């Protein structure tokens, strides 16, 4: 060919190449942006940064870059829960007793109305179908009736994947078998549960030495809002109901309950109960408890008490509670949580105590009607309670001394030496592994309904696309997280209600297969593509 033809040929080829490149670019969207996972630091929870890194690594297999971002715990709460300024959030939703009722995981975490500053629906999940089902389940007072919407809610949430459940961790704890017998674990609390406290038999002087690495902050039953204080106050103060070892509320300071209609509950209060100072517990005290906590806006129960219209005393031993709206969780979240306080002491607070707010009352010598009475509290060192023999169900042991240790290692060392006979709450899994081999020590994991949850900010790309979230479900390294990071004291997660919560868990929701190809297929079907460097690209708009 001559020069002219060559030039024309070359120009045509270039033009074609350019055109096809432009055409290709128009078939695909921009690359999916790099995203970060906010989580706590290793000092707060050694597992979390590791889990975040494993997830970030797994996302690479989709051609999508993710980084782990461990920050100060408070900062995390501020950014995620208060400001909703985040992309992904790795959090541990603890298995506390009041979360055994499914209302928390189904309603509080997923109802669109809870997407507010400080609310638990920080993901911004909005599903009309879920909203309806969640509301319905909270209104059914009958357990069997409630099961159906709760099961349905789990399926909806799992299908939509507004966030994803990564693991169901156990509570790892240890105790000395030569000192303690008869421990009864409770879902989410292990052997540190109330049932253990009152049923255990202790050798020696009868006082159990239970170790914890953090001290209680205060002993004020109105100001309580943290599991730490709930646990200790719940043995000094009594409750109308208690969450039994199987996770269902059982009557305790009450002998029975009647649902008069969906908005009225009649509670029969047990007779013959006494406060630790000897005075009798009356229905007046119960009425006072509700009204006082509502009047002073006790932070933990504020929302629930706003639903209480009136508390009446129709009979000698009966308390009638009138609600504005029917509320199924009322029994387990309020009646089984609120502490009965003595009218003859608290009526004078705050006026006679020289403060302006009962929340500030130090309550140095708490007087309750629970099975243990307060002995002394040396801040930072120990809290001692002794058995209250006049209680209707007195403990089998002589009392409990709650000792504060400097660290988990110090607790483990003390258990090994025999100075401490039980860990009050979680002991790190690595230490529990080590203590397994020690003679006379039982160290293991106990079932819990808590879970590790990876929340997506549903308001931003790419998490606003359900197809993207569903694809992510299949690359999450659940097996590695449970085996490597949580040392097998955990199971891979799926449904928002843990299988440990047997009554409410929907067995139809199964752990998804870890299948990168399936994830890629789901993405491809939704229009996502990959460029030459295998970088994930948005669908063409």
């Amino acid at each position, binding site marked *: 060919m001559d020069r002219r033809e060559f030039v024309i040929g070359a120009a045509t080829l270039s033009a074609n190449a350019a055109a096809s490149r432009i055409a290709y670019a128009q078939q695909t969207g921009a690359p999916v942006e790099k995203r970060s996972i906010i989580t706590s630091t290793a000092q707060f929870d050694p597992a979390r940064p590791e889990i975040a890194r494993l997830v970030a690594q797994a996302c690479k297999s989709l051609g999508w870059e993710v980084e782990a971002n461990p920050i100060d715990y408070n900062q995390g709460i501020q950014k995620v829960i208060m400001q909703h300024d985040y992309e992904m959030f790795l959090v541990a939703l603890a298995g506390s007793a009041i979360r055994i009722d499914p209302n928390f995981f189904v309603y509080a975490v997923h109802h669109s109305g809870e997407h507010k500053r400080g*609310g638990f629906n920080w993901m911004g999940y909005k599903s009309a179908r879920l909203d309806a089902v969640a509301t319905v389940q909270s209104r059914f007072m009958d357990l069997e009736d409630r099961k159906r919407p709760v099961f349905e809610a789990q399926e909806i949430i799992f299908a939509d994947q507004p966030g994803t459940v990564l693991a169901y961790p156990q509570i790892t704890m240890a105790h000395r078998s030569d000192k303690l017998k008869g421990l009864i674990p409770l879902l989410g609390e292990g052997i540190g549960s109330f049932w253990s406290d009152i049923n255990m038999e202790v050798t020696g002087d009868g006082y159990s030495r239970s170790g914890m690495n953090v001290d209680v902050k*205060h002993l004020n039953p109105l100001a309580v809002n943290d599991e730490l204080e709930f646990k200790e106050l719940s043995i000094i103060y009594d409750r109308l109901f208690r969450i039994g070892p199987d996770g269902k509320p059982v009557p305790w300071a009450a002998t029975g309950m009647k649902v008069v209609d969906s908005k009225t509950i009649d509670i029969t209060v047990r007779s013959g109960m006494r406060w630790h100072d000897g005075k009798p517990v009356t229905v007046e005290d119960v009425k006072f408890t509700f009204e006082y906590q509502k009047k002073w806006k006790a932070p933990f129960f504020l*929302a629930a008490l706003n639903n209480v219209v009136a508390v009446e005393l129709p009979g000698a031993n009966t308390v009638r509670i009138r609600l504005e709206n029917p509320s199924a969780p009322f029994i387990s979240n309020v009646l089984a949580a609120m502490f009965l306080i003595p009218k003859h002491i608290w009526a004078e607070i705050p006026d006679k105590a020289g403060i302006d707010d009962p929340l500030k009352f130090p309550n140095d010598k708490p007087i309750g009607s629970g099975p243990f009475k307060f002995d002394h509290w040396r801040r930072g060192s120990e809290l001692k309670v002794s058995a209250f023999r006049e209680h209707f169900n007195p403990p089998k042991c002589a009392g409990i001394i709650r000792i504060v240790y400097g660290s988990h290692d110090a607790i483990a060392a003390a258990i090994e030496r025999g100075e401490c006979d039980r860990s009050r709450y979680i002991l790190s899994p690595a230490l529990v592994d080590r203590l397994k081999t020690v003679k006379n020590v039982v160290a293991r994991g106990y079932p819990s309904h808590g879970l590790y949850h990876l929340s997506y900010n549903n308001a931003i790309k790419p998490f606003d696309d359900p197809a993207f979230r569903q694809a992510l479900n299949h690359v999450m390294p659940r097996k590695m997280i449970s085996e490597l990071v949580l040392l097998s004291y955990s199971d891979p997660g799926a449904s928002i209600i843990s299988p440990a919560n047997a009554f409410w868990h929907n067995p139809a929701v199964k752990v998804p297969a870890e299948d990168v190809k399936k994830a890629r297929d789901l993405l491809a079907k939704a229009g996502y593509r990959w460029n030459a460097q295998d970088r994930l690209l948005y669908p063409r708009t």
Partner: protein
Amino acid sequence: MTAYVVRRFCAALLTLLGVAVILFILFRLMPGDPTAQILSPALDEAAQARLKQAFGLDLPLWQQFLIYLKNLATLEWGRSFTSGQPVASLLGHWLVNTLLLMSTGLILAIAIGIVLGIMMAARRGGALDIGATVVGLVFQAAPPFVIGILLLITFSYGMELFPSGGMFTPGADPGSTWALLTSADFLHHLVLPTLTITALYLVTPMLVMRDSMLEVLGSDYVEFARAKGLSPARVLFRHAARNALLAVVTVSSLILGFAIGGQVVIETVFSWPGMGKAMVEAALQHDYPVAQAAFFLMAAIVIGLNFLTDLSYSLLDPRIRLGSA
């Protein structure tokens, strides 16, 4: 002399005020909202607003600052965010615990350090001189928890001679603080932490004393004392050491100040509920009142000790007392 004291006192107060301002700014600059610690997201808006109001967090910044200054001066240090209890009583309690922990160890460290320093200077280059320097530096270079844990492994877990931590055996609460201090149980618990602290802080007074002594030993009046025929011990202790002590006094006051607040590691290793641990926890939890007051207290102690040091100079050094150079 009075003018001197008054001048030093005013300087101390001004320094304290400066510290107070810096602390206030520093804590407000920290990222993370303090309300996030006590206002669990489980609480709704009304509850959060209520707690915010109860703790005075809804006031504008300049108002918070004025209240802060007023409270500092009147020892009304507010209430802890986490426990709601008065900070002053909390800090007092922790300070006592830390003082109990530190005082024996520090007094021993300074006393032994001074004596060793004198002896080392007397026989410079000798076995004691080199040996003590090496051992002392090793202990100081080692992290506190290493020494503490090594002692625990050997004497507590290994030989089971001493308890593994805490201020006293759980459940054996003797009642009043005085009964506590004099109980054998408490002293038993004090041994290992004291050994750790002594080992850690020994080398500074020791080496400072040694160097100060060497300098003094070369001066004219010491030579004159020797020439007069005084015994070596008398020369060493009555003449040389008294003058060399000035340097150690200065250094000791610095050590004491930092030791009060900086023992978080030892307090963690020995499960001792003291100020170091409390300060670190308060800072991490954004418990502003406690953290601010604790840091301020520590600054006040350091400044106070410096002031006392200045005063003690006048006792030790007649040149200062008489006002001449």
